[in-house]
């Protein structure tokens, strides 16, 4: 079973997303601190924002490094997570239906998220983000091709 990486372009997507969050939070934090603090106390929120920027820059790359998947006759296995790691295995026969979805940023970088739906109770939707769009479609077709038999329950 050989493992595959997702498209590295997804790092840029995640960085953009993280940066947008950081900018929004910084605006809020900045406004409050300017009203409340003065002088050297302002360094504290500034440091927090700087740390957030560093994390927002570094985390997507780490997330990419930690994410891989493998497809075989039985189904798909997905490894993900930087600090809390998870290894998820989903048999083909359990895939109820699938989505290939793209947000605006993902479209810009040509990546897509493959969403696999199961009849389970906790993991009813399993996401594999950061796939190249064509690859996501191909993977979807490969996974659902033989899943026809059985109700999946």
């Amino acid at each position, binding site marked *: 079973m050989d493992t595959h990486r997702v498209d590295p372009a997804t790092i840029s997507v995640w960085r953009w997303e993280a940066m947008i969050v950081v900018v929004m939070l910084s605006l809020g934090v900045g406004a409050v601190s300017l009203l409340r603090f003065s002088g050297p106390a302002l360094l504290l929120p500034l440091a927090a924002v700087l740390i957030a920027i560093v994390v927002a820059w570094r985390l997507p790359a780490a997330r990419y490094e930690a994410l891989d998947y493998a497809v075989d006759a*039985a189904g798909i296995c997905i490894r993900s*997570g930087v600090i809390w790691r998870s290894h998820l295995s989903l*048999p083909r026969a359990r895939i109820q239906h699938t989505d290939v979805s793209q947000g605006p940023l993902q479209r810009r970088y040509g990546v897509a998220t493959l969403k696999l739906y*199961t009849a*389970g*109770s906790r993991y009813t939707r399993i996401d594999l983000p950061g796939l190249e769009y064509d690859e996501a479609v191909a993977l979807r077709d490969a996974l659902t091709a033989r899943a026809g038999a059985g109700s999946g329950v």
Partner: protein
Amino acid sequence: MASDIGIRPQQRLHPLSWVFVLVAFVRQFIVPLVAIVFFGVRDDGSLRGALFIVPLLIAAMWRQWSFRYDFDADSLVIREGWLFRNVRRIEYRRIENIDTERGVLHRLLGVAEVRLESSTGGKPEGLMRVLSLDAVQEMRERIFEQRSRATIKATVDERESSQVLLQLSPGELLRYGLIDNRGMLIIAAFFGLIYQANLIDFSRDTLEPMLRRNWPVVSAAILDHSALWLLFTGIPLFLVFTRLLSMGWAVVTLYDFKLTRQVADLRVSYGLLTRVALTLRLPRIQAVQQTQSLLHRLFDRVCLSVDLAGDSYSPQEQRGDDNRKRVRWLAPVCTPAQATEIIHVALPMLDPETVPDWRPLAPRARARIFRKTALVFLVIASTPSFLLVRYGLPLLLPIIVLLAWGHAVTYTNHTRWALTRDALLLRSGWLTRRLFIVPRNRVQAVKIDVSPFDRRHRMGTLIVDTAGASGMSGPLHIPYLEFETASRLAQALYRFEVEPEPAITSLPDAH
């Protein structure tokens, strides 16, 4: 399938349906309604507040009038509403259960509340409030006639294969009530309601004269020597009272509990006042759980419940239909031997000959559990409310260590898992012991979670998801597994469809 315009549903609900719809409405709004009625009384002495019932009454009658259903060639058609019309088609072959529920009022009027369930979704496909018994019988015949024609199982003689698996005598029910102790909940709910409705002022100034007036002897005893009396009579009396209450509750609600097997179905019926009849289709059973608390062990009894497909907790869909949250019992109380027998009926894929090869958790699990428990105890012991015992901390420390060590040792000794050819089994807990059985062909997705602590010890938590894992317990968790073991176990479960056989041999030996 015919188009929806093709058929005009003609059958109506029972003419008195509005009564039950109204009761259901009122139940939903019980707290505001009680408040309205009481405040209405206090303000000007009239029951003007009760007028709020009128719109509910109109809504109830409207619902009865606009609800129609009928039997098409291959499906049941239900039409609801008039302006915003909703026509629903349920194919007969997809209907798994026709469950009925009959309270006292239902029985007086000869009607039943009917729920149609299919194998998908958390919500019943059709809720009919209410139908006459003849209509229910007709519906049963129509739907199951279609289904039995479609399946080969119809050739099996119904009577021959009908078999009573469990029947609870009043004695057993008393035992169940004693173990379950639902009385505490009833009392809590009762006081909650009284408190909410401001019926009684709970301050001592009003309570004391009232007690003295009504129960002079008791109150003199309690109030004049309060602390001692409370300790030596009040608390034991209260405990006895709640147990008695829950015994009574058990006898009333579960009266004549019967679990029968009919072809491929399990039928459950119980209740003295409200009579409940449920059908559990075997293919829908996803997992079985056996629970044995300390009291269960004292009486040599266990409790069996099942997870059904499509039964998982989803708060949005279940609003207003509280019956869905009911625990799916196979047996509220039964002997361990009966439990084993019922498990094999409920999960026919299990091979009764297989003796599970029980395996322990990772060897270092004990040390980790000990550290975690000790830490939790320490945090609790050092919270402000315990600061009184601040100087006793040196004394407390050995106790904490002892308790945590005891817990870690007994927990790891009692937690064992096993993978057989057909199922994954887990025994866990030491005070309340649980046995989970998940058939391998019911596994949906398998996940291993590795926390930073797990990673340091090369461990992981195995999580096995099924289609019916209940909201309370969730999917099956096996924590503190050797990571290597967890991933082999996950692979074995994941590969079941493609290579069912060799899985067990690839597992590492027991330590």
